[in-house]
């Protein structure tokens, strides 16, 4: 992984000192709430429902065991003994005291971590495919470009007070596992006809109130031009993005208003002026950064192991876990192992300090001391020898980190919701629990196949509900929590925004409604079809008709709504 040199370390240390002084001035009354807000946000600090929330950056989801142990220590010392992994591969602590946050950042800085630009109207933590560097379908490792973008965007003097937040994702494989099409900028590493590596550039995707899919403004951008092109996009946005309305300030609204072609023309005109500036990315820098992401010393004899196939045959529960929680690796004899943060009854993405320490130990033992966080709010140990899978499984099981549900309905994305977040309209964690209780048999989950359930407690869409195969959105109806369900979304290559089913349902009915929707899928599916495939084939109507409880107000509303049309 990337290692700080004295320059990186100095900048992070100076940031801690700067922030410490800002907190001091705020507490002394020298900074108003309004003045302090963007400063604390650019250091990851929100003021939440119960307490401040601190979001710590995990650049492109890459963590060392030492860093994870530091997160565990912070969880114990400054929080209530746990943390929450987010869809942007970061971790959040829900209970720190404002007064302690400078000390927390100082502890993070000691292990080359920070909370820089994890919030605020600036360029946020750049995310990447969690299988970067180990995916069999990879064209080029995106992490080195993420690191290069991280450095370029850190304390960017021109782009720290943008109209709104700005999110960039980079993929390097054929399969988009980073939701790049619903980012402000999505970068796909591609190879052109001459065999050169470059980027396809998408702009203007995003979720929130106005969900939009990103549009390609350049099919092939040479690597040398990566930063100059990003700078041109950001400059056009900084100058012309709307600032009069918070809900229309994201770049997607500008791209939509201008049209992608006109937006691209503006970017290209700006780029023409700076494409040969000092910002040109030279090969020496790419190779300098690439060295930090060199493959670990793999064991050439890993594939010769005979124990793994035997355990697969001999232990059914192990085989089940392997089928769901273990992914292919580009090196034979190695596997990628998901550490499931989806234990039924626990909030999705949550992890205790003891579990963090345990995962750090397991990473040291089985995965070169490295851990990834994933967009789906799990952890991942890459580079596990197949011979080690069996003991690793036992160890994860004893830590309640081996729920064999990756990729199933139970592998939900879920925001913190009303339980923590001051923006939320409705609880999402309690709905996750309700769904876990309803679908508590593994065989049922497996029968439902690959299913992406995404849940947000409000229309800001932190839980990416628009791009779930099934999306659940919490809404406030006269002080009560209701839930709007949408079907057919995806954030992967087959990207789509979900279609709203119909009237929202009361809190107690969410899992029951899901059950009725999934019954339609089970009845109508054809061989090997995922839920999403069936939905795309048969459309919303069969689901809509069956989704609502017979005799319920929602069912009547639906009947009336459609009766008018006929």
């Amino acid at each position, binding site marked *: 992984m990337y290692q700080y*040199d004295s*320059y990186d370390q*100095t*900048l992070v240390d*100076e*940031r801690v000192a*700067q922030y410490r002084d*800002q907190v001091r001035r705020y507490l002394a009354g020298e*900074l108003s709430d309004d*003045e302090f807000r*963007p*400063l604390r946000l650019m250091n990851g600090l929100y003021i939440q429902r119960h307490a401040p929330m601190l979001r710590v950056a995990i650049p492109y989801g890459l963590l060392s065991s030492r860093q994870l142990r530091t997160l565990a220590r912070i969880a114990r010392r400054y929080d209530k003994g746990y943390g929450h992994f987010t869809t942007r591969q970061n971790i959040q602590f829900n209970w720190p005291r404002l007064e302690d946050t400078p000390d927390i950042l100082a502890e993070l800085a000691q292990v080359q971590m920070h909370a820089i630009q994890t919030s605020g*109207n600036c360029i946020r933590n750049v995310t990447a495919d969690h299988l970067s560097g180990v995916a069999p379908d990879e064209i080029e490792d995106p992490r080195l470009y993420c690191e290069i973008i991280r*450095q*370029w*965007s*850190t*304390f*960017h*003097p*021109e*782009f*720290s*007070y*943008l109209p709104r937040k700005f999110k960039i994702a980079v993929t390097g494989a054929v399969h988009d596992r980073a939701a790049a099409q619903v980012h402000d900028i999505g970068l796909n590493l591609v190879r052109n006809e001459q065999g050169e590596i470059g980027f396809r550039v998408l702009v203007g995707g995003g979720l929130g109130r106005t969900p939009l899919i990103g549009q390609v403004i350049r099919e092939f951008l040479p690597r040398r031009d990566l*930063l100059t092109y990003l700078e041109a996009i950001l*400059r056009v946005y*900084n*100058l012309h993005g709307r*600032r009069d309305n918070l809900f229309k300030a994201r770049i997607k609204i500008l791209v939509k208003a201008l049209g992608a072609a006109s937006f691209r023309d503006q970017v290209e005109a700006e780029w023409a*002026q700076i494409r040969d*500036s*000092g*910002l040109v990315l*030279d090969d020496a*820098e790419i190779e*300098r950064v690439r060295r930090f992401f060199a493959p670990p010393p793999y064991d050439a004899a890993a594939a010769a192991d005979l124990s793994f196939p035997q355990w697969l045959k001999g232990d059914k529960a192990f085989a089940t876990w392997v089928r769901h929680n273990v992914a292919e690796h580009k090196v034979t004899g190695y596997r990628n192992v998901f550490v499931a943060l989806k234990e039924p009854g626990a909030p999705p993405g949550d992890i205790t300090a003891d579990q963090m320490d345990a995962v750090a130990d397991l990473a040291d033992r089985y995965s070169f001391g490295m851990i990834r966080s994933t967009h789906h709010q799990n952890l991942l140990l890459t580079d596990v020898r197949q011979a080690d899978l069996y003991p690793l499984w036992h160890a994860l099981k004893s830590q309640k980190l081996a729920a064999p549900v990756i990729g199933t309905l139970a592998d939900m994305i879920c925001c913190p919701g009303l339980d923590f977040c001051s923006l939320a309209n409705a609880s999402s964690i309690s709905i996750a629990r309700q769904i876990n209780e309803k679908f508590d048999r593994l065989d049922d989950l497996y029968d439902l196949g690959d299913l992406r359930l995404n849940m947000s407690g409000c229309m800001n869409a932190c839980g990416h509900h628009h791009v779930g195969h099934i999306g659940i959105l919490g809404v406030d109806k006269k002080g009560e929590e209701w839930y709007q369900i949408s079907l057919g979304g995806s954030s992967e290559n087959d990207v789509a925004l979900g279609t709203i089913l119909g009237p929202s349902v009361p809190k107690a009915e969410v899992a029951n409604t899901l059950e009725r929707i999934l019954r339609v899928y089970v009845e109508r599916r054809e061989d090997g079809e995922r839920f999403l495939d069936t939905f795309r084939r048969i459309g919303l109507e069969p689901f809509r008709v069956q989704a609502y409880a017979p005799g319920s107000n929602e069912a009547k509303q639906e009947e009336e709504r459609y009766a008018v049309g006929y």
Partner: protein
Amino acid sequence: MRSVIKNRQIVEDHWQAVADDAALPDGPVIVSLARWQRERTALLARGEPVGVRLPNTANVADLAADLPVLALVALEFPRFADGRAHSQARLLRERYGYRGELRAVGDVLRDQLFFMARNGFDAFELRADRCLEDALEAFGDFSDSYQPAADQPLPLYRRGR
């Protein structure tokens, strides 16, 4: 006479901001872009330094031809969180080669000064309720920077890191 920060020092401000409908006083004046465009010849004929205050919605290219005769350009921060003038500043310095005084006016606060200086501002009218001595410390917030800007044409990695 009020004080401003100029070249990282506190100095008395000899510039006077003049409203569009006010008579021109003696000495250096800062006028709006509209007044500059309307009274360009008369303003230059006074033989005193002229500065122009540019709204943050203006296209700085429109002022490019006038830059050689302007001793000051003021860029506006209506709210400190409105960052458009950061881009305007870099364009004036890096693209249009402006070398005169570039002044930040409006909601100008200490915690944005480091970035403003990197973008090419060399003068700062701090909000009236703020202490200029304290603000001077902000220029030392960071000892280096990763990316190029108006103060440094090369990224860190091309400067022998």
